Structure formats: structure tokens, C-alpha cells
């Protein structure tokens, strides 16, 4: 059964130096607040997994929390480059990071295998691309019925997966709707999981397109209103596109990035205090 914890307590308990973590959310429901808390607690040597390491992982990488990144697309969507990610890969700043690179289809198959208790997933993928030569976790496999050659990728089973969702009840059952991405799979594939939510309610009423992740497959539920910002939570907030644009300027330069992290993350105590510090309202 999930425990209802503060985000500080949940990160302290489940994310350790050297942990393999996955933080998912596909444009929608990105767990930014949780990312900040990991930086605040100065975790190091994380193997960070995420299909789209956008702003949330740019912050973790730039802050020096990450020693290995597994991903399939690293950019600031609709804006441009991910400067901290690029600086790490191109110039080893703040230190060298190892990368394990896949396609979206491959990452999705890896999470599904992880959630299904299988050691690998099968797909038609990567054929003819140069990714095959750079990534040891892509192999061929033959169909035992047709002898056709397909691609195998290993399951992802993070130590802890972290997602943001709309709400939970007091028993820790999590309700999530809108674009679901690969979040449910990332939670089901993980050894432990943390879910930040907009709201904790007495009773979850059905929502069209909504699914419930039962409490007994979740480790911790943390109330963090607007905790996906500048991403959004359908039914609660809108995407803060201008924040994504402004990130480009903040992250472009090492000094301005370091200053920003110092002032707004290390210098704040939690997400509310972060929000006041950067001047966003708790609810958009």
C-alpha cells in the first residue's frame, strides 16, 4: 500500500546515490517538483532514464546528479536545444556522463517488458540505423516460427519511477487521465514508485479516459499542487509555454544556470517556495 508522504521524505527514502531512476510524463504531467527535490537533496551518480529528457533532466544533468542517461529524444520541445545536456555530452560539464541511446519505440518496448516481468521486448526497430553500433542494448532475435529477424531490447526495471498524476484518494490509489504516455508502465516496471499529485480526495469519481493505479503497486503518494509546472495536468493547469522558452536563456550559459539553481532550487525549501521564488502562481 502506498504511504502518503511529503515529497522531501519520499525522495529521501527511495532515491539514493547511485539509484536507477525513471521520471516519465510525455509533455503532459512531467514531475518537475520531484526533479527539484532530487537536486535539493544533492543526489549523485544517478542512472537517469527518460524517453524525453527535456527541461526536468536538463536541470538534473546540469546540477551534477546524473552519471548515466538512457533516453530517446533530448530537446526542449518547440524551443530548441537542451543546453545542459549538450554541455555534458559535448564538453563533459559538470562532468562526463555515459549515454545509452534508443528510439521511442524501443524505450516503450523496454518499459512494457519491464512492467510485464519479461527480460526483453521485441520490436521492428533500429534496422539500418547507426544506433545499433552505439548502443549495446540493441540485439537481433529470430522468430522461432518464421525465422524472421527482429530486434530485441532489454527490459527497464528502475529502482524507482517517479510520475505526476491528477489525484489520489487517502488510501493512495492514484487517478490519472489525459495523455498517459508511458507512466503506468514505468511505475509497474519499477521496484519502488513515487507519485506526486495535484490533489488528495476522499473518493475517486470516474473520469472519462481516466485510469486508476492501485495503491498496492505504488510506494509513496505526495501532494504537490502544480508539481508538473511548467508542464501541465489536464483538468488542473495549462502548459506554461513561456517558461519553456525562458529556460533556453537560463540554461544556455553555465553561470546563469548555476545561479538559477542556487536561487530557486537550493535556496528554496519545497515546490511552493520554488513557485514563489520564480513568480508562478500555485495554480494557473
Amino acid at each position: 500500500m502506498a504511504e502518503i508522504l511529503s515529497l522531501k521524505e519520499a525522495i529521501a527514502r527511495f532515491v539514493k546515490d547511485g539509484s536507477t531512476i525513471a521520471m516519465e510524463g510525455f509533455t503532459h504531467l512531467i514531475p518537475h517538483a520531484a526533479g527539484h527535490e532530487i537536486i535539493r537533496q544533492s543526489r549523485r551518480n544517478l542512472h537517469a532514464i527518460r524517453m524525453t529528457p527535456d527541461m526536468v533532466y536538463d536541470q538534473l544533468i546540469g546540477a551534477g546528479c546524473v552519471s548515466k542517461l538512457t533516453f530517446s529524444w533530448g530537446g526542449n520541445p518547440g524551443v530548441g536545444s537542451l543546453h545542459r545536456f549538450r554541455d555534458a555530452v559535448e564538453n563533459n560539464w559538470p562532468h562526463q556522463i555515459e549515454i545509452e541511446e534508443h528510439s521511442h519505440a524501443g524505450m516503450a518496448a523496454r518499459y512494457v517488458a519491464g512492467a510485464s516481468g519479461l527480460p526483453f521486448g521485441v520490436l521492428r526497430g533500429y534496422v539500418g540505423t547507426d544506433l545499433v553500433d552505439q548502443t549495446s542494448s540493441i540485439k537481433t532475435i529470430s522468430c522461432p516460427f518464421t525465422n524472421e529477424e527482429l530486434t530485441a531490447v532489454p527490459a527497464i526495471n528502475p529502482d524507482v519511477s517517479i510520475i505526476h498524476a491528477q489525484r489520489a484518494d487517502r488510501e493512495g490509489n492514484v487517478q490519472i487521465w489525459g495523455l498517459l504516455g508511458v507512466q503506468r508502465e514505468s511505475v509497474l516496471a519499477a521496484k519502488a514508485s513515487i507519485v506526486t499529485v495535484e490533489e488528495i480526495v476522499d473518493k475517486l469519481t470516474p473520469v472519462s479516459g481516466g485510469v486508476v493505479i492501485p495503491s498496492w503497486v505504488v510506494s509513496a503518494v505526495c501532494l504537490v499542487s502544480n508539481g508538473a509546472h511548467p508542464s501541465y495536468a489536464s483538468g488542473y493547469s495549462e502548459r506554461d509555454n513561456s517558461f519553456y522558452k525562458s529556460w533556453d536563456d537560463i540554461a544556455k550559459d553555465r553561470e546563469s544556470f548555476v545561479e538559477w539553481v542556487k536561487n530557486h532550487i537550493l535556496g528554496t525549501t519545497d515546490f511552493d517556495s520554488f513557485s514563489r521564488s520564480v513568480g508562478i502562481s500555485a495554480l494557473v
Partner: protein
Amino acid sequence: MILSADQSAFRLWCKPMAIASTSASTSANQISTDDLMIVNAARVLGTLAAAGNAACFVGIGLPSTAANLARHLYSPEPVLIYESGCIGSKPTRLPLSIGDGELADTSDSVVSVPEIFSYWLQAGRIDVGFLGGAQLDKFGNINSTVIGSYEKPKTRLPGAGGAPEIAATAGQVIVIMRQTKRAFVDRCDFRTSFGFGDGPGHRERLGLRGGGPKIVITDLGVLEPDPQTCELVQTQMHLGVTAEQCVENTGWKLRIAENVITTEAVTDREVNALRELQSAT
């Protein structure tokens, strides 16, 4: 052999859309090159939808704008599919991100990301995929991973995303990219998405199921693969663009099709629909 006029898939496709040049307005001729690319892509989608083949896997940016423009201009409409899990999206404004709430709210069906890639793309249900990238080579291969070496890149790009499997599996791929010597290269530094590989027969040898890149829409015109050599050939130029310009802006020894055509002028209807869409956003 240079691609002849009859071999141009694009010209055949565009026939139903052909309009008398007198209907072109002056304002339409003053649209940006981005808009010109969008209108051309929308025309292709309109023709494909008319033939019943326009389940379209769309990325954000020009492709999404083009696909939505086609939805407003043509009937039957193309079916818009976004990798965020939206099937049959009918946004009233242009989405700002691939996970824009507007896409989910206006979809026939919203599915998980694993399902989009397995039940929909991999299963061969996607007729048209749109791709772009930092480099395109003469055989339609695309690089969106690194400039320079992989180990010590000059420029680290975002990476693959959904592109490799779209390139492999979609019925046909439409590439939208600005035509420059830096981007249109003889050979990509990194092959992120497979076009025709090293040339004729390569896709078949690898067992790829999709048709590969059928058309490249640029700010200068349109390139299409020569059916014999698989090499991209300039088959269309926008009004005022010269063959020399195309050659100069291409990093390989570009060939111009025998009967290269000039892009049909953008119509008032097209430009108005595009402006409406853009102003609603």
C-alpha cells in the same frame, strides 16, 4: 537516367489539386517560405486522403501545421496521429507541443505511448510519416543525432525520438527541410532514420516494410527519388527559384529533373485557411 516528368509521383498526386494560375492572388505569392512548404505538404496530404491513404503520423512544427491545414482544405480529411497517443485529433488551433491538451481533447481515441508504437505504427497502419532533421543525404537518409563523431560530437542533436521506426514503417515518408549545402549532404554523419540506405535494393534487403522517403519538400521546391537510382532529384521549383540556386544549396551533385515543374501558385483559399489556423493559435 534523370527522372522524367511521367515518373514524378508528386505531379501525379498533385493533379487533382491543380488550379488555374489565374486564381492565384498577389498576396498569396508573398507568403513566407515556411508557409510555402506548409501549403505544399498540405497539398500532398490532400491528394493522399482523396486516395484513401492518409493516416498521418505527425510531429510538431511544420508537419503539424501542414496536416491541420489539409484537414481544413480537403475532404476526406487526413487522419492525424500524434506519438503522444492521440488518434484522429481534430484540433481547432495549432498544437504547441506534441502533448498539447487540445490534441487529447479532440481525438477519437487516446492511447498509451507503447500502444501508439506497437498497435498503430509497427502494425503498418500509418500511411504517411513526416520527418525532418539536421542532415539529409542524397539517398534520403536522415541525421538527427550528432554532427561530427558520435563519441565526441561537434553538435549533439536531440536524437531519434520516433523517427527510425516512422522511416522504416510508414507507407511513405514526407521530409520537410530547408535546402542548404550544410543540411543536404552527400552522406549523413549519423544515420538516425533510414531512407534508401546506400541505394537501390537496400530497404528490401533489410526487410523494411514501409515505402521510404517519397518526397522532400524544401523552401526551394521539391525533390523526389529517382526510381532507378533512389537518388533525390529536384522535380519542382518554387516560382522564381532557379536550377542553379537548387544546385548551389545542395551538398551533393544535384540533378534537376528533365521536365522540372514550377510550384502551382498558392491560392487565396489556401492562404486564408492557413492564416485562420495561425491566428486561432
